[in-house]
């Protein structure tokens, strides 16, 4: 496994380098830079723009340097944990992100756990009781969850909460705790508000996971080794957990690669609709304002998490299911 891990990590290095170049190109693609956007905003408000000050700021932020030099400064900084400077907030990127990152983690991990806790038993039940009333019912609910866009569900819940219960279910805490240091009361308030976004974001993921687990488990349960084991009188639970369930877990594991970036991006559109103080809306604002280091570091962080997520899922798959595929070969 050490050999696999070392080879796999070595593959990640050129991948991350290529991603960093792409991200840098993407954040440079819009015409102009943060300062031209800033000047346009000032002029639109009828304020005078001092060319000397703009030139000073351009030098200060390194925007007068050639692109390759800007890239080297940005990428080299990230290698030692310096994510650059946010022009819009006038603060280092890590300070701008601050609490939002922890709240995004909390929200997304809660969503992942909700998804797995709900999807796992339902998926197993549906596969082991195929075409029963329970299976049909779960399938219907699953399809409804899959077909409903998250932001629409969020809007419906907002409306129902306001009209029928007279409460606002937006936000991730009561307004008085915003920008306050963490305390027991603030944490309890977060927990109180957390269930709504967890249900909203988790519904479609749960439905998809149920369908995939059911399909995979059904495939495994029809294989010959399961028939042999059943004929030998193995108990149903042991029969299920010994190999079929392990094999059917593959989609859960393969999903880790997609889950990690979601943990940080924090379902941006739902966060906007529900006014959640997560990192998603901040990323959108940074992209709109051409706050290049904030947006670039975010995108790079998300891409790195995708690469790390795929690494984790590959390692788990290599440990659980190290099978050769037809058409593959071995090298000496």
């Amino acid at each position, binding site marked *: 496994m050490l050999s696999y891990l070392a080879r796999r990590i070595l593959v990640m290095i050129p991948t991350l380098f290529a991603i960093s170049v792409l991200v840098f190109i993407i954040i440079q693609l819009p015409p102009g830079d943060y300062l031209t956007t800033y000047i346009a905003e000032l002029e639109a408000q009828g304020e005078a723009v001092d060319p000397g000050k703009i030139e000073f700021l351009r030098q200060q932020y390194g925007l007068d340097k050639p692109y390759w030099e800007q890239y080297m400064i940005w990428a080299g900084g990230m290698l*030692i944990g310096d994510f650059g400077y946010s022009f819009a907030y006038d603060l280092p990127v890590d300070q701008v992100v601050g609490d939002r990152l922890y709240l995004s983690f909390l929200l997304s991990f809660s969503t992942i756990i909700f998804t797995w806790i709900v999807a796992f038993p339902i998926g197993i039940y549906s596969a082991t009781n195929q075409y029963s009333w329970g299976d049909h019912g779960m399938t219907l609910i699953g399809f409804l969850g899959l077909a409903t866009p998250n932001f629409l569900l969020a809007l419906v819940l907002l409306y129902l909460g306001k009209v029928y219960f007279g409460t606002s279910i937006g936000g991730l805490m009561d307004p008085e705790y915003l920008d306050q240091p963490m305390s027991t009361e603030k944490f309890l308030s977060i927990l109180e508000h957390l269930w709504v976004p967890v249900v909203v974001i988790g519904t479609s993921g749960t439905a998809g996971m149920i369908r995939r687990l059911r399909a995979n488990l059904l495939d495994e349960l029809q294989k010959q080794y399961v028939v*042999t084991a059943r004929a030998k009188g*193995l108990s149903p639970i042991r029969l299920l957990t010994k190999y079929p369930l392990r094999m059917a877990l593959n989609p859960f594991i393969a999903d880790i690669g997609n889950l990690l970036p979601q943990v940080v991006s924090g379902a941006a559109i739902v966060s906007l609709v529900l006014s959640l103080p997560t990192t998603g809306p901040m990323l959108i604002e940074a992209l709109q304002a051409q706050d290049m280091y904030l947006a670039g570091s975010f995108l790079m962080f998300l891409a790195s998490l995708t690469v790390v997520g795929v690494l984790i899922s590959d390692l788990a798959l290599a440990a659980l299911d*190290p099978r*050769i*595929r037809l058409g*593959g*070969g*071995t*090298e000496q």
Partner: protein
Amino acid sequence: MSVPEARFHYPLRNLWPDYARAAAGFALTMLPLPNAIGGNVIVLTIVLALAFLFGSFGFTTFLRHKSIVAADEQGIWITGLWGKALRWDEIAEVDMRYFSTRREKDKGWMQLRLSGKGQKLKVDSNLEDFDGLIRHVVTAITRHDLVVTPIGKENLASMNKTVPTREDTA
């Protein structure tokens, strides 16, 4: 009919890509180290962990290079540092794993794992005449009625090695 002792080793021509990977990985992770010291603790930890990983990979490649795998009628053993030996009748489970770093899962390598008596003996397909060693193992599986994992059976079948239908359903 008695089975003569067969000896196998890892030749340099099969192992040099692993040496090169270990060296490249170690060099690349050590590159940002001077600047990372005194900076972000998380980044420094990641850099040191990766350097340690590639260092360990280089060391284990060296150990494989210096080891000899041998098999006869009685059992199988590996000589060298951390050498191991198992008699065929002591083996509780035979597993054959396939690893590949590619999405298409091609150009990978096999790893034979024999476990029993609280120890695990692992041999990679980088071994010279790996196929010859597998022939010994398949003979032992038949003679001693050894348990082969379902994944191991599939991977052995891909090498045109069929083993008895007994499966681990215990």
